Each structure stands twice: as structure tokens, then as C-alpha cells.
């Protein structure tokens, strides 16, 4: 997807997250936070020209990442995105127990989620502002 499409999705999921409570709405909250963060990371990767923006032909480099682990990266992750990837992975890792499993977020975990997302926002905003590459 184009950077502008990713950023439109970030805005949309951010708006929806604002209507939810992290504890009462654990399942959707975790997934939407992951979506917003994943779209931010994809926009930053495109801006750094590490992944293909737009349609991807087979045999060329990868396009959008669905998760931190999928598809496998065919590039070296720059240091400035290490913290964002760690933070996004921490949100992804909540899914087995808190989205598909029986658990509900605790206030501490909800705070950790928000902090993780803030780390993704900080890292990706810095890249997007610097690269000024939205198409």
C-alpha cells in the first residue's frame, strides 16, 4: 500500500481506539493497536525505501508486512526501527492469551500497550518527518 494509505489507516484505527476501553474491550483494543502500529511501521519502511510501496511483483523485494515476522524480512532492519519492532512484537504477542485466549488486560498491561504504541509512534514519526516521503 502507499504511504498515504497506511497513514489513513493509522488515523482510522487511532480514532476507533479512542472509543474503546483497553480492559473492557481487550480483544478489539489489542488488535486495533497492532493494526495502527503495523501501518505506521509499513509507512516508515516504505519511506526508508526498504520495502516496496504499492503493488509487488513476485521475485522483487517484499511489500507490506502483515506482522513483524511475516513475510520474512529481505532487508536489514535499521537501528532506528529496532525499538519500534520490539514494541510492535510485544503487542502481537498478546494475541494468543488476550485476543484468542480467555484473558483480559490488566491496568498494568494496558499501560504497557500504550507505552509500546507510543514507542512505535515516536520512531516512525521521526522517520516520516525526516524523509518527507508521503506519496
Amino acid at each position, binding site marked *: 500500500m502507499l504511504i498515504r494509505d497506511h497513514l489513513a489507516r493509522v488515523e482510522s*484505527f487511532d480514532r*476507533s481506539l479512542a*472509543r474503546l476501553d483497553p480492559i473492557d474491550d481487550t*480483544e*478489539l483494543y489489542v*488488535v486495533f493497536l497492532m493494526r495502527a502500529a503495523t501501518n505506521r511501521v509499513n509507512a516508515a519502511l516504505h519511506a526508508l525505501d526498504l520495502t516496496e510501496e504499492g503493488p509487488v511483483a513476485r521475485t522483487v523485494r517484499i511489500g507490506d508486512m502483515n506482522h513483524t515476522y511475516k513475510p520474512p524480512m529481505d532487508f536489514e532492519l535499521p537501528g532506528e526501527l529496532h525499538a519500534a519492532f520490539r514494541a510492535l512484537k510485544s503487542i502481537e504477542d498478546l494475541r494468543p492469551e488476550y485476543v484468542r485466549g480467555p484473558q483480559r488486560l490488566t491496568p498494568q498491561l494496558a499501560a504497557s500497550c500504550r507505552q509500546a504504541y507510543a514507542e512505535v509512534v515516536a520512531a516512525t514519526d521521526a522517520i516520516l518527518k525526516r524523509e518527507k516521503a508521503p506519496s
Partner: protein
Amino acid sequence: MNINQHLEKARASLASLNKLDASQDALAIIDGTLIVGYHLGNALLHTHGVCEPCVHFNTPSKLERPVHTLPAPVRPGFEAFDALETLRTRYVRNPGELDANAVRDARRLLDTMARECGVTV
């Protein structure tokens, strides 16, 4: 998770979904229906003996068999789940232009799944 745990999670996720605004949260609604669908779908699989509660399938595309080979009572729910997954692929993971029809379709498909599970939407 067992059937009751899945249904409890489905009801909780449905309540969350109902906090969203169809005109402003279309993307989230499409994505959220998959979460509710996951719990309803696995409740159906467990209810009809397709798999044990210790086994789960995230989406129809992860199911190890085609939907049309599932037992008859599971099929309508899973056909709806399959269509929900298609909507997610089109609009959440690709830049499909969302409109009110897509949200209506998603809610209708979720209604079908809920009905098959005896859950009130």
C-alpha cells in the same frame, strides 16, 4: 478454549464492536468482525466435533480442509466467516475503498455466524 469460553469472548467482542460508529469506524468494524468470527467459528467447530477445545483455527484460510467439506451444521457459519476474511483482506490489508455497503455486508455475515451459534447480536 472450550465452547462457553469462546461464546463468552464472542459476546464481549460484540459489545466492543457495538461501541463503534458505522460511518466513522468502518475499517475497525470490518477487522473486528473477524475477532468475533474467530470465537463463534471455533465454538461451532467444537460444538460439532470438528476439533477439540485445545485446537483452534484463526481463520477459514488456516483451516486444514475446504469449508465445503465441513459438517453441514458448521458450513453456513464458516461460509460467512470465509466471506468476512475476504472483506478483511480486501479492505484492511489492501487499499480497497470502504463504503457503507461493506460494513453492512460484514454485519450481515456476522449475524449469520451468531445465529448459527445461538448468540444474540
